[in-house]
């Protein structure tokens, strides 16, 4: 091979590589432009002071509420890292739910009982009372209440609330009353090629362990009537192939429309690809197990995680 041949060969190979790179870049950019990665789900946690002696007298009430909300949110963030439990205002993306701890008073003798009650909503709906135990802050017979001291009240409330929140009993009920009711996604895709359901969330944001179970609920109009169905999903894992690489995917365990169960063949049904067309969809966590060694499966080293 002459020098000129070599040059010619080299320059031709370089041009091909450049072209291939350009195409790849364009493809990736196009894909990114077409569908950006979904954001981390967010749950807004608030603390409201309704009890009148505190509401009327407490200095810097908004700050007290924010302090307590942040502390409670941090507690849930430790236990349920599949979402961003934010003790402050929403950070851009619409929240998947709201949790409100409210300091309320109940008539009692000699003084009203002061307790924290829980309210919540899926999405951005109005919070409703949750089936969670109220936490007593001041019993009726305790009269030295921190009605005029922000720091002391925050400290007292958190000393009462956090140990209860950490208890197994509370967590079990919290799972049922809150976590199972949070829609982690409101769309889903049935992928017939690999027989999985892809949820528009990044797996690394949710870190669901494979023992976790999900439930896809959908409603769609069929023949003038609204048909409701559900798909039970198991083995959640990060999607390793394009498209939607890195997103959350899961296998179908069971599916039903109305009262009819769909018979699955190797975890799939021929009607699945069109099942969700035009349907309102919500995906919930039914059983939550955090991933133990997250980061390995989605192709990113533990160190960089």
């Amino acid at each position: 091979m002459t020098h000129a041949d070599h040059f010619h060969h080299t320059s031709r190979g370089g041009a091909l590589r450049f072209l291939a790179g350009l195409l790849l870049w364009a493809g990736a950019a196009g894909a990114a432009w077409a569908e950006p990665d979904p954001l981390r789900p967010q749950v807004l946690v608030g603390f409201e002071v309704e009890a009148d002696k505190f509401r009327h007298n407490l200095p810097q009430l908004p700050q007290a509420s924010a302090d307590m909300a942040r502390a409670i949110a941090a507690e849930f963030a430790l236990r349920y890292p599949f979402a961003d439990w934010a003790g402050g205002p929403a950070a851009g993306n619409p929240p998947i739910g709201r949790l409100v701890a409210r300091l309320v008073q109940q008539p009692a003798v000699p003084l009203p009982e002061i307790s924290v009650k829980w309210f919540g909503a899926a999405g951005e709906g109005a919070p409703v009372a949750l089936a969670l135990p109220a936490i007593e802050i001041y019993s009726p017979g305790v009269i030295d209440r921190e009605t005029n001291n922000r720091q002391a009240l925050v400290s007292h409330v958190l000393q009462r609330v956090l140990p209860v929140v950490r208890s197994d009993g509370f967590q079990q009920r919290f799972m049922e009353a809150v976590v199972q009711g949070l829609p982690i996604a409101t769309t889903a895709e049935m992928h017939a090629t690999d027989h999985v359901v892809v949820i528009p969330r990044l797996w690394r944001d949710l870190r669901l362990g494979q023992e976790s179970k999900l439930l896809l609920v959908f409603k769609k109009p069929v023949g003038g009537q609204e048909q409701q169905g559900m798909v039970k999903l198991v083995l959640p894992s990060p999607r390793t192939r394009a498209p939607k690489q890195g997103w959350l995917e899961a296998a179908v365990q069971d599916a039903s429309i109305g009262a009819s169960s769909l018979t699955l063949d190797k975890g799939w049904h021929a009607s699945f690809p069109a099942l969700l067309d035009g349907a309102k969809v919500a995906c919930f966590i039914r059983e939550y197990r955090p991933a133990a060694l997250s980061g390995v499966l989605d192709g990113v080293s533990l160190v960089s995680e």
Partner: protein
Amino acid sequence: MPAPADPPPAAVDLQPPAPPAPAPPAEGGPWFWCNLLALALLAPFVTWWFHKHLDLYLTEVLLIGGGLSLWAVLRAVYGMVETLGKIDPASLSRRALASPETSLVLAVAAVAFALAWGKTNSFYIEYDGSGADDREFIVQVSHPDGRPFLPEFTVGPAAKVAGRAFVFQGEPQELVCRIVKPLNYKPQPCPIGGREALRVKVPGDFEQRAFHLLRIVPHIGLFQELPDVKDQPSVRYELRVEAGGVAHTLPDLRRQTVFAGALKADLPLLMGGHDRAEYQDELSAELRAASVEEDSAARIAAKLARRERVWPAFDVQAGQLLRLSLRRIEQQSGRDTAREVDGFPFDYTVTADKVQTIWMPRLP
């Protein structure tokens, strides 16, 4: 044989002849009578001044004992002078009295005494036993602003007089005398100054009166609403008490006991008669009776008993009607907004009790 030597010449006295010794003052001369007259004139004034300002201070025992001792000492000196000096002291004193130097000494003494006369005052507390059942009285003498002027005096059947003279301290002083124990008498003004001798009879010079210590304390509902002493609240509470047609205001009421019922100097004395432990028990019992939890009641009672807010704004008499009101003041848009707290105003009639607790309304 040698001739006898001439006798040495007699020493010549070169000193001038000594002047003749002055003649001793003639006893019975004009200086004698002059000095005697001066002494006679001075002595009654000195005696009267002594009686006025120092008699009580020296006391009878000291006077008799001291007089006898002085007489013995003088008599001993007299005897020694007579024996050792071969001098007739009587004659010597007569000669001294006839001396013009004695007149000079007397003149100086008279001037000094005249100065002391105008610049000496005295202050004595005398126990007179009137209406008293043989008990001791502790009397406090203070400036009108409460600063003590003298240490407290204790008088009674055992020590009937206390006080002292103030020589060369003739500045007038506005003072207040107060029987601090027993606390059943009105304070009396007792100014001293000039060359006055003040005698205060205890308890005869004092008008009897009854003092009442009021302990104003928030009940449970108000307690939980009020700021604690350590708080930096955004809302403040102002207590007003109308007594005898005059309104008195206590700003920034907290979770504490307000002590009132007497004026500045009397209130701390009245509080001395208040038993804190007993008060704490009373508070605790009342709180428990109001269904407050045992622990909380004990804690609050201790807090209220310990946190004393002294408010010497007014004094009260048994049967007097007081009207208590409480305003809640909050700053809104840079302006104070006030409203009367629920349950206020309320009336309270002062009882005959020496120490009485006024519970403010319980509130819902």
